[in-house]
């Protein structure tokens, strides 16, 4: 195995591979920054380019592009408050406030370094799992996915800033919205009101773009004296501060990476869920949870690490059994087959070197992305010093194109507008919008996998090993939170007593 690891590295650093990697990284950056334009479409566009190439250079291009697009997606979230990718939604929550405070450089630095660590963590996990990934995948089915979605639900409370009751209502509404479309079991049309476009449900891209980006655009439009942004020019010297921040919170960074990578292994869960779990976890375990949503660097670190760590995880089911998690992995799987690589034992034996080179490609492209990102931070962060109103046409173009490119349909632009309105109203009247988003991404998973679990196993699935692990995590988390709240109450009481004790 060790030999194979080194010879895989040799394959990954041949001139042609490195060249392809660099091209991939540059494309990935552009694609990641544009909202809506996701990795999947670009991968599909790049596939014909790889015809006739050797596997390793081909994957340097494809995987390099894909990994970097996730890193770059965070940039858009921080700079404009519009998520560059659906998986960069949690990054908006703290990255954008930091930017508003004039700490764009710090947020970008922290996001870049945590993304890098996350990606490398994911790659190492992928490598470590090579001997056991097939037996591991044999134990992962609908019940594990359902349990993971339930785990996601438990974060509603911590993601509802302000009122938990309002958060619950919004999350339930999100779950309800996720049911729009053709039901997965009987083909019944539910809440689609005859619109064929809604048959496949409400797309996550237009929702994320409208819900999170809309309020920001409106603020820029109405920004009279520039008071939504600190008047001082963005503080760029903070890049290194951000990098240091992320390593100061190294333990959080590793936990967030682990959350992303492990949940990434579950095919069908998707990266949109794990970012909120990592973010919610960071908030729950933070010493200053009230800082979250207000520019907490921990929020940036957790979301940054998770988004990139998922890629290593995603590759596990793809390589082990040819089961891709999500559209991008499906395209990559297509590339495997085109290049004559059969997922399964072949990629873990005969073609082990190619598989291992994927690990190296993730690591190398991350390093390249960090360097490129570091060079780009300055010019990009300067964009934020453009005052509110001048940015408006640009932002509206991003919203429109982002929503449209989901399915190349104007209907998605209208959906984006509806969620833009919801986002603005929630901000105006203090209703939390993140639970709505969480409900929307979890709803479909909850229904789908509960039904499948029940049809396959009735209720015996509750005792499956994977499910038990998640159940224990959920129980532990609830216990942990309860203890923390109790301790806080006691501390608060003590404080009150000392304060109130004075006459």
């Amino acid at each position, binding site marked *: 195995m060790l030999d194979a690891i080194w010879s895989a590295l040799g394959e990954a650093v041949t001139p042609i591979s490195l060249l392809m990697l660099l091209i991939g990284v540059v494309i990935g950056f552009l694609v990641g920054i544009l909202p809506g334009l996701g990795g999947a479409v670009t991968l599909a566009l790049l596939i014909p380019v790889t015809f006739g190439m050797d596997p390793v250079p081909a994957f340097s291009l494809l995987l390099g592009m894909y990994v970097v697009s996730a890193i770059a997606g965070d940039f858009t979230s921080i700079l404009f408050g519009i998520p560059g990718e659906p998986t960069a939604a949690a990054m908006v929550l703290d990255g954008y406030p930091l930017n508003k405070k004039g700490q764009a450089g710090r947020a970008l630095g922290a996001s870049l370094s945590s993304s890098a660590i996350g990606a490398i963590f994911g790659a190492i996990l992928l490598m470590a799992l090579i001997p056991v990934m097939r037996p591991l995948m044999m134990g992962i089915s609908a019940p594990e996915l359902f349990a993971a979605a339930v785990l996601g639900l438990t974060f509603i409370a911590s993601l509802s800033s302000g009122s938990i009751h309002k958060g619950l209502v919004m999350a339930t509404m999100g779950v309800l919205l996720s049911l729009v479309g053709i039901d997965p079991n009987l083909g019944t049309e539910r809440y689609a009101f005859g619109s064929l476009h809604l048959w496949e449900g409400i797309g996550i891209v237009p929702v994320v773009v409208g819900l999170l980006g809309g309020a920001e655009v409106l603020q820029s439009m109405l920004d009279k004296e520039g008071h939504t942004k600190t008047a001082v020019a963005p503080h760029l010297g903070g890049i290194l501060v951000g990098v240091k921040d992320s390593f100061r919170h190294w333990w959080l960074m590793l936990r967030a990476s682990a959350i992303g990578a492990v949940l990434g292994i579950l095919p069908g869960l998707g990266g949109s869920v794990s970012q909120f779990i990592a973010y919610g976890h960071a908030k729950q375990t933070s010493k200053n949870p009230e800082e979250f949503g207000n520019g907490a660097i921990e929020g940036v670190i957790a979301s940054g690490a998770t988004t990139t760590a998922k890629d290593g995880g995603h590759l596990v089911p793809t390589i082990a059994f040819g089961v891709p998690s999500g559209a991008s992995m499906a395209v990559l799987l297509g590339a495997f087959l*085109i290049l004559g690589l059969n*997922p399964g034992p072949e990629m873990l034996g005969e073609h082990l070197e190619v598989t291992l080179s994927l690990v190296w490609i993730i690591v190398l492209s991350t390093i390249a992305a960090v360097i490129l990102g570091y060079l780009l931070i300055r010019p990009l962060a300067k964009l934020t010093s453009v005052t509110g109103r001048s940015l408006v046409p640009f932002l509206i173009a991003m919203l429109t194109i982002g929503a449209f490119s989901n399915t190349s*349909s104007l209907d998605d632009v209208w959906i984006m507008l509806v969620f833009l309105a919801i986002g603005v109203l929630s901000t105006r009247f203090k209703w939390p919008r993140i639970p709505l988003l969480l409900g929307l991404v979890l709803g479909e998973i909850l229904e789908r996998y509960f039904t499948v679990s029940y049809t396959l196993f009735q209720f015996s699935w509750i005792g499956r090993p994977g499910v038990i692990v998640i159940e224990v995590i959920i129980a532990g988390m609830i216990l942990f939170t309860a203890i923390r709240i109790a301790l806080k109450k006691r501390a608060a009481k003590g404080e009150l007593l000392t304060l109130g004790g004075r006459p």
Partner: protein
Amino acid sequence: MRKFALGLAALAIVGGTLTGCSSAATSASSSPEQAAEKLKNQTITLVVPFDPGGGYDAYARMLAPKLGDELGATVIVENKPGAGGILATNEVVHGKPDGKTLVLLNGPGHLGAAIAKTNGVRYDAKTMSYIGQISSEPDVLVTSKSSSIASADDISGKRFAATGPGSNEYIDAIVLNQQLGMQNQVVTGFKSSNEASLNVIQGNVDLHSRSLGSQQPGINAGDLKPILVIGENTGAKEIEGVDNLLDVVNDDQKELATLHTKLISSGRLIAAPPGIDPGTLQVIREAFEKVMTDEAFVKAAADSGRPVHYASGDDVQKLVNDVMGSPQEYVDLITKAYSG
């Protein structure tokens, strides 16, 4: 108040001038030469009604540059997923029949939905202008390698996996149930057919039918074993010696089995909107034929795991007419497969 009124006014002015300028050019019937000239240097859109990354997308992207070369035009691929392909098909059918819009259809899904007259279908499959067939492969019913099922005789009482009603795999399950006189349960709700396949490998569910190309990796990896071929056997080594549906059904079911074989073998089709000018249709059909009979193209396609299978536009038209004229019994069966 003045400011936003101005905003609207500016848009209205721009709008007014543009409506004045745009006038739809109408084209009369033209000879193949004229038609070929008309398509030169144009952008032709090949619509794929599915997400990027699947087999349909792969075929479209393989074909697009070659077809563009033949026509002297640029062919771009546009993914328009939605409603199992019906959304994009509706749009194309009602689009301009100028040869600049083509669509890659999932034959069984396209025709199945049209036979079942499922909700949302707003076209008559017979009226479309078919360019030809790009691939055709049978469906293969598989089970896990450790399963006790050895042949089609053992599948009664076992469970099928499928994504949902109307999918090719669901239609197969319903048809098999009827033709082999079984009452097998179909477990639906899997997010993708790959996920359904993994559950078969894990032994959570027994049977799963989908296209040969999708089953090949699992069979080659030794995780899956083929039980039954549905559709015309194309001679792939993975399914050598495996029973065909036509061989295992009783005589009184032969007619329906043949129809179903036709439906599955309709494969992946290229089509243009109805009412296309005959000259233009001929030009595109000829260009398509040239690509599909080019040995280098056929070999490259087979090497990349996407074997092509050519049938002319006329043949496809005939097949569509046959399938659309199915007896009521088959229509009812397919309708059942769409209603869940």
